[in-house]
């Protein structure tokens, strides 16, 4: 059952998305700066993979077109980040820095929902659409038709990955209550996201642990791609979901504590 709180949160997110979409259609220069450039970034970033494939038949057991499935998954996540997550974080951090968060806190809704829907840049989703198309094309070239079970598993892991992405965003937001000029932390995350282009199997040692549990890029891109290729088992799905849920709980606790220490503009 959907609780009243959840449905009102979804309502707020929907309304905010509609407003942003209208604004985006108004200012069409964003089509080039947010949309086309992010697609370009998404595609140019493949270059290191291509260079690696020029010298090796595969990378960590992934063939060329399998890596394109992964690249497509990456572009979907990257587009969601730059269109939905990053703008909201930047806007909310600005509110925190200036003390105008007060206006959000006064509204009769969960402040976290208001922060995470503070601003969207819909043109960034262009990268997600191109990424989705790339996934379909690559699967067709490979001749892989995912079964319903595989699709379901990939979808579950994908949602878990997006939840983890949001959890990391909320953590960044909580930190920004203390260090006020940290809006560039979202840029840092954008840089780190480039790790997610590569199969998680490339990493060894501490980096592998970090990218599986702490900053679970493996959950965001590698595992959905594995799911589509029919290589993901139930244990992998369960671990991915558990990782994301733990991150989400930690983030929520950090947010509540940070909000308590917020002293607003006037005090």
């Amino acid at each position, binding site marked *: 059952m959907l609780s009243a709180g959840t449905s009102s949160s979804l309502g707020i997110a929907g309304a905010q998305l509609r407003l942003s979409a209208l604004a985006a259609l108004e200012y069409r220069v964003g089509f080039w700066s947010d949309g086309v450039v992010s697609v370009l970034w998404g595609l140019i970033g493949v270059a*290191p993979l291509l*260079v690696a494939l020029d010298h090796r038949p595969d990378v960590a057991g992934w063939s060329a077109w399998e890596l394109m499935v992964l690249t497509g998954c990456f572009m979907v996540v990257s587009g969601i980040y730059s269109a939905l997550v990053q703008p909201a974080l930047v806007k909310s951090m600005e509110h925190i820095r200036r003390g105008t968060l007060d206006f959000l806190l006064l509204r009769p809704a969960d402040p976290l929902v208001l922060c995470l829907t503070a601003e969207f840049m819909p043109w960034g989703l262009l990268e997600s659409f191109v990424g989705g198309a790339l996934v379909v094309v690559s699967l067709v070239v490979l001749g892989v038709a995912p079964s319903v079970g595989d699709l379901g598993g990939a979808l579950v892991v994908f949602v878990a990955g997006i939840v983890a992405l949001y959890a990391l965003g909320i953590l960044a937001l909580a930190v920004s209550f203390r260090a006020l000029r940290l809006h560039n932390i979202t840029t840092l995350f954008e*840089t780190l996201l480039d790790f997610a282009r590569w199969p998680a199997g490339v990493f060894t040692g501490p980096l592998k642990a970090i990218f599986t549990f702490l900053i679970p890029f493996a959950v965001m891109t590698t595992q959905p791609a594995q799911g589509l290729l029919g290589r993901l088992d139930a244990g992998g799905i369960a671990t991915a979901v558990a990782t994301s849920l733990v991150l989400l709980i930690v983030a929520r606790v950090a947010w509540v504590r940070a909000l308590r220490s917020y002293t607003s503009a006037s005090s």
Partner: protein
Amino acid sequence: MSGGGGLRRRLAVLGALGRLGLAEAAAYRASLAVWVLTTTFPLIALALWAGIARAGGPIGAYGEAEFVAYFVAAFLVRQLTASWVVWDLERQIRLGELSVLLLRPVHPLVHHVMTNLAALPLRLVLALPLAIVVLVAAGGIGVSTEPALLALVPLALVGGWILNFAIQAAIGCLAFWWQRSATLFEIWTCLFVVLSGYAVPTSLLPLGLDEVARLSPFHALLGFPVELLLGHLSPAEALDFLALQWGWVIVSVALARFAWGRGLRAYGAYGA
């Protein structure tokens, strides 16, 4: 006013700007630390390439140790040639903040040069420990053993810094006509990542693309100083590439001056 007095006054102004930049960098050190971390991309590339080399043997002339040395050097060169004038300039032109700088008795671009340079020491303080940890973990770095070539490294670094600053300034000046000039710089950065040796050592690029990349300003920004430092270049090659780099420096400075001069006239036409 005598010429000597003018010079002394100028030096005093530059010194003051330098202190201002240093103070800003120190005040927002957490922010600067995050900026340093955003340029850790070479260390990411290091983890990947070293991993691939470890699993299946060397790629081209690069084994695991060579990849580590290459990307740590790339990380440090990137720190030493960093500037961010394109974003400052774009914002200042768009919001009209530039008018305040124009009123001051210092050329606004000189102001930016000094504040960008002043952050370098702190940048290095933040970046060096990271580089040292990676190097110690990987077992050291072999730099060029040719003293004459090592002597050219500072020249290559200065050239890289000026080139980066002038290109950013030139693109930033486009904001006089076009509000989102930073977008153009993002496209530039896309090409930089691939062609400069930032994500892939240039000599590994396929299809003769490495020859093209070596002639480009991208490689002059990063790949050339790195390869010079690591001793990958013969003395003759080093001198050729140094001349090429400084050729790009001259072109980029000329472009920046041209864009600034034209742009300022357009800016004045707003009635600012």
